[in-house]
């Protein structure tokens, strides 16, 4: 029979070890995650100049997709939801209105605040 341990029965030391490893990994991944937020900001800037810029939409949608995939895994499910909202907006074929661009700016700001808050929290735990 296969030796597969159930995570539901994972002893506390396994859970604690995993959390510690994930905290270390968050530190290593933070720069990549911040760079993806910067890609979103650049896409937003380009789209404010030219709302029909397909390359900016594609680059922004790709960065948002990657953020949506990783943030929840690091314990930021709200970050995943925000990133997914950005991805859907940029992937849609509908023209971007000023209202959409304003919302995009706010969502990117929220994402950045969420990521910074988690990093500060992780820093406090280490200290």
């Amino acid at each position, binding site marked *: 029979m296969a030796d597969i*341990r159930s*995570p539901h029965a994972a002893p506390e030391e*396994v859970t604690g070890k995993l959390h510690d490893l994930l905290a270390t990994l968050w530190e290593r*991944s933070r720069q990549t995650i911040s760079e993806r937020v910067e890609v979103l900001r650049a896409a937003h800037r380009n789209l404010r100049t030219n709302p029909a810029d397909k390359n900016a939409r594609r680059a922004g949608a790709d960065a948002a997709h990657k953020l949506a*995939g990783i943030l929840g895994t690091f314990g930021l499910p709200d970050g995943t939801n925000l990133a997914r909202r950005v991805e859907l907006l940029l992937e849609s074929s509908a023209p971007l209105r000023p209202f959409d661009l304003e919302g995009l700016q706010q969502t990117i700001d929220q994402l950045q605040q969420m990521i910074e808050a988690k990093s500060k929290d992780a820093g406090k735990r280490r200290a």
Partner: protein
Amino acid sequence: MTRRILIIDDEEDIRQVAGLSLETVAGWEVLLANSGLQGMERAETEQPDAILLDVMMPAMDGPTTFLQLQKNPNTAKIPVILLTAKVQGSDQRRFAELGVAGILFKPFDPLLLSAQVSQALGWTQIH
């Protein structure tokens, strides 16, 4: 018996988190590949028990990689689980029609990933 899982994903942070999760929680041996091509090579030489395959990758995406694995008699029988951040029903139906063993979604919970893989593959769990 220790399971051997090959994770194919172009994003390093996803590879690292999924790898840590499967090693720490389930005690499985994890193999990593950062592209579809590298994954096909590792699958053929290492003969893992299963493959966790990202959908969106540059050059060769997950579905294309899966079809190539199926064409090769040396890898055709290795079960493949797709890992995707795509939540739209049309995407999910398209992936299911490929004939993969399962579909898991990003973001995943690192504590639960091994149980989700086991469930998709019908592997018995020992509590």
